[in-house]
């Protein structure tokens, strides 16, 4: 490992960290504007032009709020929980390829922090570890609403992780690799087109897998219609009821990080990642395509959030175990059989 390489990694991680934090801050703004637009309201529009400085104001507010630790809370776990939620949420980004390679300062720079043989398993792993933040927050607050929220959330995340994982295996069978960079490159222009114009994206090979992935991902991010862990009407705010100030903001941010992760995964696995026209001539375009695709997905997630009512808890579990899991296993069997006969 040379010093140059180390420097490149450090800079990449720093830049991604900065971009993610900014994006998360502005996603809260976008979310409220989209909500306002869908529900025929205005949304935040007072702070700065079009309310664009609203995230800044919110951030300042979070910092200056009083930080309360409940007297009966188990103190250490209460302090650790927000970190346990946000660290795994940030960790998954190091393997996501957000562009092809560009030449900067006379050096070819690949637009992903690292790539390794088990990148996809790594994302699933850190995703499943993320549930600890939620569980610990719910338990350590010593509040029945928090505890119920934490329990619901862990049950939901365990249930939907299975169908999420099983739906991804379909893509693995098609791509023959767990490395996200290889999966993206396999969907690129170099592998040709179907009928001359349809790009070889996995969505055309795995439509059912994608639907299962999409629904499971929505459940994993705890968003409406799967937001049982923090159902306001029943549980006040769920697992972070007792949290205030910056600790509350950390849970808030980790949910948006999860949102960006799953939308990036959907883009990478099913919609060709950074692939698009003219990327061979202008490599910077790949970055634009990736961001564009991710934002379309984020918009769809928000659209669903403000259009759908919430599931009942038993419906949620029935959907996960009785519909999505069998469907994903069936999808796996069919995919494997077809691949066996085609090759």
């Amino acid at each position, binding site marked *: 490992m040379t010093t140059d390489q180390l420097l490149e990694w450090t800079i990449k991680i720093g830049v991604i960290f900065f971009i993610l934090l900014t994006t998360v801050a502005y996603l809260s703004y976008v979310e409220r504007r989209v909500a306002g637009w869908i529900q025929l309201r205005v949304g935040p529009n007072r702070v700065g032009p079009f309310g664009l400085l609203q995230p800044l104001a919110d951030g300042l507010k979070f910092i200056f709020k009083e930080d309360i630790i409940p007297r009966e809370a188990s103190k250490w776990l209460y302090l650790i929980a927000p970190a346990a939620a946000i660290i795994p949420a940030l960790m998954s980004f190091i393997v996501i390829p957000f562009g092809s390679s560009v030449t900067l300062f006379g050096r070819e720079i690949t637009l992903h922090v690292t790539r390794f*043989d088990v990148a996809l*398993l790594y994302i699933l792993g850190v995703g499943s570890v993320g549930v600890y933040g939620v569980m610990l927050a719910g338990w350590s607050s010593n509040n029945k609403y928090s505890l119920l929220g934490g329990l619901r959330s862990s049950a939901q995340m365990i249930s939907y992780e299975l169908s999420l994982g099983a739906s991804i295996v379909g893509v693995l069978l098609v791509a023959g690799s767990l490395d996200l960079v290889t999966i993206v490159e396999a969907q690129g222009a170099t592998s040709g087109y179907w009928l001359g114009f349809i790009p070889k994206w996995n969505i055309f090979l795995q439509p059912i897998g994608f639907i299962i992935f999409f629904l499971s991902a929505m459940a994993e991010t705890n968003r409406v219609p799967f937001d049982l862990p923090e159902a306001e009407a029943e549980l006040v705010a769920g697992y972070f009821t007792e949290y205030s100030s910056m600790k509350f903001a950390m849970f808030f941010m980790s949910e948006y990080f999860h949102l960006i992760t799953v939308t990036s995964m959907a883009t990478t696995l099913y919609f060709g990642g950074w692939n698009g026209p003219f990327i061979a001539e202008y490599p910077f375009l790949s970055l634009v395509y990736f961001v564009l695709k991710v934002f379309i997905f984020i918009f769809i997630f928000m659209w669903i959030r403000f259009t759908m009512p919430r599931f009942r808890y038993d419906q949620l579990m029935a959907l996960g175990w009785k519909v999505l899991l069998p469907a994903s296993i069936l999808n796996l069997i069919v995919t494997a059989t077809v691949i066996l006969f085609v090759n």
Partner: protein
Amino acid sequence: MEKALFIIIAVIAVAAALNVLIQRNPLYSALSLIGTMAALSVLYVMLRAQFIAAVQIVVYAGAILVLFIFVIMLLNAPKQQLQIDKQKGLRYLAIPLAGLLLAEAFYVVWRVQDIAMPVVKEGEEAVGTTWSVGVALFTHYLLPFQVAGVLLLMALIGAVVLARREGDK
């Protein structure tokens, strides 16, 4: 560099494992176990077994221990402070068994002096990658793999039977 990392990780793993036993609150024990699992995963990465390392995190830290903690939270243990039944007979049995285990560990350390690290190879020759693990499972170890699968299925069916109450039809 590698040796220093190994010592640090090994110390973390052993300390977390000891903490599992020392803690009186089952939740803290379960949380320490996560530390052990994470440290083991790092050791697997150092042994070039990325697949096993990732599976270690996904299965143990991500699923099994989540279930442990889930059950502990459901029972809400801190209120009741589960006391371990003082069964005198078992305690006297535990000492020779622990001694036997220690003796085995020392025997292994004594017999196995120097193990060569697996040689890093590329492509199809590489050890520890998803590809090589998959090929090994479905060719050389096919029968044990299938037997383990059937065993797990039996456990699953058993759990379903036990969970079903008499009245449910």
